[in-house]
């Protein structure tokens, strides 16, 4: 298992955000963390990236315990945040260089990795453009390319398609599915949109801070369309 979350609980004061969350993503799989707004997805991502820590529960990333050995866990983790994190005054390449340096990469090795990641996301031609001049889809692609620079084992994306138009959304969803399929990268993709989930994906259903279901998507929803299954499982009694 590449990413294991065990009994994770978290609350903001009296308000419980996550309650005994447990799930595991097998190596090389695309896992969709599906949940409506307010399900606790962003809180979970805050915990997964070590931005803040939970008083109870455990997170293991490629075998590294995030609480005990945060630097080893962060070193094998690529993150695409929900908030935009590009420096708009810098070019695509400069943004990637800055991130590479944060991971201790420099020189020719760094440049080779940057070119490879940009190729992978079909962004090489735009390497010299300022981030400010890119559209939303290309900014997201830049952020995904950036998250791949240090060859992470696990890629975490927090609602990466928010604010994108339909074409850019489906292009990015396809790109990341292909990454998991072709390179054996483990992906955790948070979303509230069921059309971003493919039948073969691993699916974790999060609702009101609890994991309601976890397994292969097609096995979970069976013959019911995923959208209907999702709505029926997360329906809040009026």
């Amino acid at each position, binding site marked *: 298992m590449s990413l294991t979350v065990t009994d994770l609980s978290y609350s*903001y004061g009296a308000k419980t*955000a996550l309650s005994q969350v447990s799930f595991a993503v097998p190596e090389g799989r695309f896992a969709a963390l599906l949940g409506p707004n307010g399900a606790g997805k*962003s*809180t979970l991502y*805050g915990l997964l*990236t*070590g*931005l*803040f*820590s939970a*008083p109870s529960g455990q997170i293991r990333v490629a075998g590294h315990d995030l609480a005990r050995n*945060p*630097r*080893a866990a*962060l*070193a094998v*983790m690529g*993150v695409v*945040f*929900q*908030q*935009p*994190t590009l*420096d708009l*005054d*810098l070019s695509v390449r*400069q943004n990637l*260089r*800055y*991130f590479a*340096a*944060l*991971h*201790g*990469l*420099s020189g020719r090795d760094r440049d080779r990795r940057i070119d490879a990641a940009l190729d992978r996301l079909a962004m090489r031609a735009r390497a010299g453009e300022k981030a400010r001049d890119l559209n939303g889809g290309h900014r997201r692609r830049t952020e995904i390319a950036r998250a791949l620079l240090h060859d992470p084992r696990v890629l975490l994306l927090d609602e990466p398609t928010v604010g994108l138009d339909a074409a850019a959304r489906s292009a990015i969803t396809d790109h990341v599915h292909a990454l998991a399929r072709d390179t054996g990268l483990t992906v955790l993709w948070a979303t509230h949109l069921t059309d971003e989930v493919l039948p073969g994906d691993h699916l974790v259903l999060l609702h009101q801070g609890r994991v309601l279901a976890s397994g292969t998507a097609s096995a979970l929803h069976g013959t019911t369309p995923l959208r209907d299954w999702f709505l029926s499982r997360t329906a809040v009694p009026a």
Partner: protein
Amino acid sequence: MSLRPWLIAFRAITAREALRFVHQRERFLAALVRPLVWLLVFAAGFRAALGLSIIPPYQTYITYETYIIPGLCGMILLFNGMQSSLSLVYDREMGSMRLLLTAPLPRWFLLFSKLCGASFISILQVLAFLAVAAAFGIVLPLWGYVAVLPALLIGGLMLGALGLALSSFIKQLENFAGVMNFVIFPMFFLSSALYPLWKMAESSPLLRDICAVNPFTHVVELIRFALYLQLNLAALGWVLLTALVFMALALWGYDPARGLVRRKG
């Protein structure tokens, strides 16, 4: 363990601060104009009202303009320290702080690198200010321009650490105007930047005592003595001590278990 990744990251974080500064020319101009207005307008008017006696490190009577030069250097450091913490609050909302904090290096080192970057920028601004002041005839001992560099670095780090600590306790940008009013102005006016402490004591011993514990006073005095090639040990000790306290506070504020970085949504 290799030091190389640390050095690479340090260089990148400081360079990013510098680049950001290059992209904000208005900020540079504002930082330069502010102390110059004080020097050329305020000081000129105030000179007649205030008689200065000879106090260390000065060996002769000095003009009021000469007296407030170190205080105005300190003002640049103070404004920059607070402004870079403003940018931290902004960074946090924009997510680039998240990016920084997920780098596989200790958090204290990442935050310290950011502080160093901001301090380097402050030093450049102070040097630009001193150059303009020299053009207006306020010339200091030549080696003073070199000796002041470490004083500026330490003072910049201390005030940056204060800003960092404040930024970890401020949830939103809107609250920042209050910090400007309640931190920058009291720190600046209740210090030896504009008037020497003995002058302050003439009107109120209590005010003098407040000024004497204000860490900003010690930054100003450290700079003042360094400009005249002297070391004010008491000021140095005081600045280092407060720098450590503020840095510890900042680290506590950014501690993941305390979770002040967390924001819902």
